[in-house]
């Protein structure tokens, strides 16, 4: 795999070339932190930490059209669903932190049979950017990730000095993109040494180690019946902030919408925090109680998912910690579950 050295100018030129075939996205300037389609590639400035919104919106478009159909009464093909046309245009997403990139491969596990997710993975190429200064709310090392991680990336950039980047190809298609970087140079031995130095420096937090192993060893029903869930859930207002901003929350709703003879079946991100999530048509609600919903979310992410797939369904990005309006802190929940 290629290892190249870029300065800011070289990155700008390279992205301009890529822009001929791809739509380029990077975290936006505004405090709303949405991913923005960019055109001035020389001015990209990625702030430290994660952008407000996770990268999952590229993999789970909001909403995503699954099928289309006509509802015109005398159309012989009315109500026969079709797959939507694909524009064929691919995206390059620039500046994805290792936690967000890792979430793409974590989510791919339950979505193994999902053709739409697989197509979106093909459509979106990830240029990762490792973290030189993790935030106080970052805890990726607890969940099996690392600020220098490359999992889920096609290319991984590391800023080894101010405005000086080493780029590593991680996948075949990432390597192909790097071939277009004519303004970049081969990384020198010194550059690679600096990179290795940064990797060794990663402070594996000793606060929580072996999170997955310990959680997997606990009895599921004992954790489920633990008394601390009531205290954790007491102040929860059951909004969907944590679920919509979490890179590894992947639940969705399927809705049919019709207008003037056309219809579409869409899926949109859904939240298990809403009572409607489990409501039966009869009116019975298996998780009608707030505590049940809060407990289910954490049990899913920290127990059911690792039992089934091997990793916790959390990448330690810290968004839920920062944005929960009532400051429910998943790190505290993890500690409670580990010490129970």
């Amino acid at each position, binding site marked *: 795999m290629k290892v190249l050295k870029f300065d800011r100018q070289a990155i700008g030129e390279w992205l301009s070339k890529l822009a001929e075939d791809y739509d380029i996205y990077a975290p936006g300037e505004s405090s709303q932190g949405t991913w923005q389609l960019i055109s001035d590639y020389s001015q990209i400035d990625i702030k430290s930490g994660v952008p407000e*919104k996770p990268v999952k919106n590229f993999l789970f478009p909001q*909403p995503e059209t699954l099928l289309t159909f006509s509802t015109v009464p005398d159309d012989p093909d009315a109500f026969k669903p079709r797959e939507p046309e694909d524009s064929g245009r691919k995206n390059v997403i620039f500046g994805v932190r290792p936690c967000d990139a890792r979430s793409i491969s974590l989510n791919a596990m339950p979505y193994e049979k999902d053709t739409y997710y697989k197509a979106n993975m093909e459509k979106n190429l990830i240029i990762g950017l490792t973290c030189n200064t993790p935030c106080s709310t970052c805890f990726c090392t607890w969940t099996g990730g690392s600020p220098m991680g490359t999992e889920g990336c096609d290319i991984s950039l590391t800023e080894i000095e101010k405005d000086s980047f080493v780029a590593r190809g991680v996948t075949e298609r990432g390597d192909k993109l790097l071939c277009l970087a004519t303004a970049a140079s081969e990384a020198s031995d010194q550059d690679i040494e600096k990179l290795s130095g940064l990797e060794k420096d990663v402070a594996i937090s000793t606060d929580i180690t072996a999170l997955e192993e310990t959680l997997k060893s606990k009895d599921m029903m004992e954790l489920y019946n633990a008394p601390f869930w009531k205290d954790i859930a007491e102040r929860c207002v059951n909004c969907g*902030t944590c679920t919509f901003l979490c890179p590894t929350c992947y639940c969705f709703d399927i809705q049919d919408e019709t207008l003037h003879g056309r219809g579409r079946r869409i899926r949109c991100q859904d939240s298990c925090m*809403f009572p409607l999530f489990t409501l039966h048509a009869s009116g019975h609600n298996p998780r009608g109680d707030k505590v049940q919903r809060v407990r289910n979310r954490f049990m899913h992410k920290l127990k059911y998912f690792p039992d089934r797939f091997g990793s916790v369904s959390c990448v330690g990005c810290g968004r839920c910690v920062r944005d929960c309006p009532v400051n429910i802190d998943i790190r505290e929940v993890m500690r409670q579950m580990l010490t129970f």
Partner: protein
Amino acid sequence: MSTLNEKITEEIRSQAERLLSSGEVAAFLGYEAGSLPMTARPFVARKPEDVSRLVWNSFCVLNLSNYLPSLLKSFEPQRRPGEPPPEGPLPKVGVIATGCWSRNIVVQIKENQVDRERVVIVGIPSRGMVSSRKVKDLVNNREILKVIEEDHNLKVSGSDFDQEINRWDVVRDNCLTCVHPDPVIYDILIGNPSGERQVSDRFEQVNDIEAKTHEERWEWFTEAFSACVRCYACRNVCPLCYCPTCFVDDSRPQWVGKSTDQTDTLLFHILRAYHCAGRCTDCGSCESACPVGIPMRLLTKKLNKDVLEMYQSEAGMSLDEPLPLTTYNPADPQGFVLTERSEKGGGKS
């Protein structure tokens, strides 16, 4: 030398301890310290030893009255529909209330969501709450690791900076234009009431938008709400939003689509604002809870301005005042649909 907030904290702990030990209340609803700088979290103290966790600071931004109805209900024994309520008094709940929070409690009492006899209100005249977003902007979004609160300053520090900020520069927008900081209803009062505040233009932010052309207003509206993820944090922290099934969750008929399509998102916000018209106290919880910084309280503020002008009514000022939009009076001079503004109210159209 303890700060104002530290003194209030001591008083709150003392009152809560007294109420819990004596058994006068079964639970006391307040705040405790959060796990991040500039964060406080709602907390229910149930035993006297819990009160040492109670705090009061400039980051208690969510309206505690939001939790009252469900907290009260949690102390009621389960009964089937049609079964009569149990004999005897039910457990009471203590709650902290600033000006706007106390007005929301008044609205809740008048809307039959809270029983006045079952709440012990500890009133605290408000000095305004700080917007952590404004603080972050002032330090150019560098990561804040510690904030020390003094009476008129915040000492903010990160890994490579220290900055002292004037508290009033970062107080929330709704608090800047607040005219009713004192609790209107309470059983116990902590601190001294400051009286009605003089504000040059209470509705300045709303007037700015009203001064725009229609095209400019639409642009402001669609842009400001474009980042909405439909998390409903604004709705869920609002004490007014207590419908068992919110209109966005209705399926027969389905009023609003579920995705973040622009039409559906804007419709949600407009309809919710109308449901809050004349009932909202501009407590700012909605904006404080929003993870993406949407100024949705400006919609309800505009409607509050209209209700004030048309009916000379403000939400929750007194238990004796009728609710403006749900009170039927056959002698009402205005027809079913308002066709002209009340002469007494004045104001621009």
